[in-house]
């Protein structure tokens, strides 16, 4: 395959070839960035929460009266919920993973914490049944005991004696050293360290998906009577029926009550990632349309060239060129144009990404998206040019002898 006649022919059509190359360059720049966004956001959406999402829902209660009345009311409600058929477990809490609302706090190390680091954590109020209800995997230490669960006195800082933390938080604070038995301080002023780590769970994410400390959560054996929630686990595949049954059971106890913010975990996950999903969808739509439009341009241009060169093709065929050689000529021509496009496109993709990173806080494009994008546009060009090239190859040698 000699390249020089192809190049010579292309130089005769600088603008037309340039237009195609520019399209390919832009297409490459856009799809490399779009593809990266799609993959990045898809990974973001797929992050596991650590809980049995398909079996969980949460609802809010607004008990009235004195603290004693409210607490008695809440425990009675909890008891009623636990007895609803289809309910596997339930506990009083302040927040759920992926719910978008909850408590966060700084965590500081105890005096024995040399070499460790401070961090921030989400706080989940739980009781001894929560590990089972959420389906958490305890990888070290022990669960809470019923006697350790206490009511939170309003307006006093949270100072639980014992806590369970996630592996991500343990690694951040203690590195490779075992976390169980260590002292940490939560929600307090620096230096007030009064909580002992008694257990580590494998994974439990925070309520906020866009938070930098997504995996760093702390379970505290506390119940609160101020805007409390009940987290409920149902039998598998019985989520929707059980939601209704629990609501009815609560209204049966008090028809005047407010059952607020009832949401299932799948709903919460969908809501937290709605923006991400929208963006992924838009990027995929743009990519598909873009590939179609660019392919259209290539087909149109190549068809025109084939028509324009029918006589020359006939002459080449008459002089002994095979169909395969004609086919490959057009394929090679397209590959050369695409090659120029790719060189410009890679530069452009990098510049676009740099600019987006500077202006929109987008992440830097990992380098391997560029060869992937290049491969896609190269392949696209070959696919698009195939039909016109086939038509060129089918030109009979006899055409050279006819007057046009």
């Amino acid at each position, binding site marked *: 395959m000699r390249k020089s006649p192809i190049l010579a022919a292309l130089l005769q059509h600088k*603008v*037309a070839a340039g*237009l*195609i190359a*520019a*399209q390919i360059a*832009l*297409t490459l*720049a*856009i799809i490399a*960035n*779009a593809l990266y*966004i799609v993959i990045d956001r898809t990974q973001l959406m797929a992050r596991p929460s650590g809980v049995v999402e398909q079996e969980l829902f949460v609802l*809010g209660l*607004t008990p*009235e009266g004195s603290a004693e009345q409210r607490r008695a009311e809440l425990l009675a409600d909890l008891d009623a919920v636990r007895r609803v058929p289809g309910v596997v477990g339930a506990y009083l809490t302040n927040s759920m993973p992926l719910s978008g609302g909850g408590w966060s706090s700084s965590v500081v190390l105890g005096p024995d914490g040399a070499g460790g680091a401070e961090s921030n954590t989400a706080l989940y109020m739980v009781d001894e049944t929560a590990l089972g209800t959420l389906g958490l995997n305890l990888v070290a230490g022990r669960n809470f005991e019923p006697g350790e669960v206490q009511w939170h006195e309003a*307006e*006093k*800082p949270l100072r639980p004696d014992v806590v369970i933390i996630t592996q991500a938080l343990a690694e951040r604070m203690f590195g490779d050293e075992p976390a169980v038995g260590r002292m940490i301080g939560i929600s*307090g*002023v620096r230096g007030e360290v009064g909580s002992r780590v008694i257990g580590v769970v494998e994974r439990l994410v925070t309520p906020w998906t866009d938070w930098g400390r997504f995996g760093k959560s702390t379970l505290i054996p506390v119940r609160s009577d*101020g*805007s409390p929630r009940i987290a409920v686990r149902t039998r598998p595949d019985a989520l929707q029926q059980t939601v209704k049954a629990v609501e009815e059971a609560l*209204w049966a106890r008090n028809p*005047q*009550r*407010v059952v*607020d*913010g009832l949401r299932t975990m799948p709903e919460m996950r969908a809501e937290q990632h*709605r*923006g991400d*999903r*929208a*963006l992924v*969808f*838009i*990027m995929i*739509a*743009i990519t598909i*349309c*873009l590939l179609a*439009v*660019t392919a*259209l*341009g290539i087909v*149109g*241009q190549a*068809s*025109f060239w084939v*028509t*324009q060169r029918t006589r020359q093709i006939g002459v080449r065929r008459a002089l002994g060129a095979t169909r395969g050689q004609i086919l490959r000529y057009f394929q090679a021509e397209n590959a050369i144009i695409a090659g120029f496009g790719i060189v410009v496109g890679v530069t452009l993709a990098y510049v*676009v990404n740099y600019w*987006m990173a500077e*202006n*929109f*806080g*987008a992440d830097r494009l990992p380098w391997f998206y560029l060869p992937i994008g290049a491969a896609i546009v190269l392949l696209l060009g070959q696919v698009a040019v195939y039909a016109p090239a086939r038509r060129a190859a089918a030109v009979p040698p006899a055409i050279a002898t006819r007057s*046009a």
Partner: protein
Amino acid sequence: MFAYYVRIALLGLKRQPVLSALMVLAIGVGVATAMTALTVLQRLGADPIPHKSERLFALGVDNWNTNGNSWGEVDGKAVAPDLLTHKDAMALLAADRARRTVIAYSVSVAVQPEKEGLRPYVAAARATVPDFFPMFDVPFLHGGPWSEADEAGRARMVVLSKATNERLFGGENSVGRRIRLSDQYYTVVGVLDAWAPRPKYYDLSTGAMNDPEPLFIPLSLAIAEDLAVNGNISCWESPGEGRASFLASECIWLNGWVELPDDAAVAAFRDFLAGYVAEQRQAGRAFDRAHLTAPVPLREWLHLRRVVPDDMRLFTVLGFAFLLVCLLNAGTLLLAKFLRRSGEIGLRRAVGASKRALFAQYLTESSVVGFFGAFVGLLLTVGGLAGVRSLSPHWSEAASLDLPMLATCVVIAITTSVLAGVYPAWRASNVAPAVQLKTS
């Protein structure tokens, strides 16, 4: 002559119907993508209260000091927190140095309807001062705000949104009636007309694209009753124990605005705040970045709070890059299409058609393509906006087309295809007559 060119153009399009349709479709898709993104971006970034935004200022008070660090950074510069402490809010409200000063926050209350068949539900109520309504031009259907005296006297009064009035009172004039909120009776003093500014600029911290609160109650009452805060409370040092120390703490949770009629008032208010900062520093509070304690113009505030999500800007940039590809595409196809007719052009040149006439004719032909492209683009934009709405209900208000955007859409589509057609038309008009006649 123009009509003749258009006729020829239509004939030309008909000669290659598939190619023509694909060109029209490509321009349409490009226009639709760019327009969908631009419409949403423009709506999100729109001035929510254009006749007054010059006079409205958010209160920035920088009491923050996490280990000497600022509350946050935007575009690499430190910014004041988005909310105020109770003590600063009350001090600025009492000082009364602007035409209007408004302090507000959102609380949640249980609405307990007396009407048969209505379940109680939790709703957000905006706790604020009566000046809130005239400051933000909130329209009333019945009644009006509570009085300053009621505000000072912690009166149990409530203003209902139009929808809430319909839900609780079937849309009647409910002024003077009572409703039960979290076990207490409140008297209805006003009912609003439909009001849903986008973005919800008066409080971005509780969701810029959310609806306004359905209930409005006196600020003094909400604070005195310690109603549950429905929003963020952020502290950089421990508030200590008890309600009194919380109210005196450095925790931020209140939203503040001032209305300043002219530049002189703005300057005077700046001076007043500078004096306030000096006083607070003397009293031992942080206020390390004095320049951040200032009235922030509404438009700047919306920018600082990133009301237009970065994702949306990204979409717009890619949308226009896509349009550019479509433009190059149209150029490529038109060039091929016109040059395919070299023989015909050569003939016309030979029998006396001027270059100008041919240029005009081929430019008309590309404009006709653009016209159809604009039409298809419009239809696709409507579809695209519906798609955006279904993807994200938060953008539903933003994702609707108005007349100016419609016009922009048509202009962009036709400009695109005329631009794409200039070079091909020039090339076509430069076909040499003799050569073409010889070869064909």
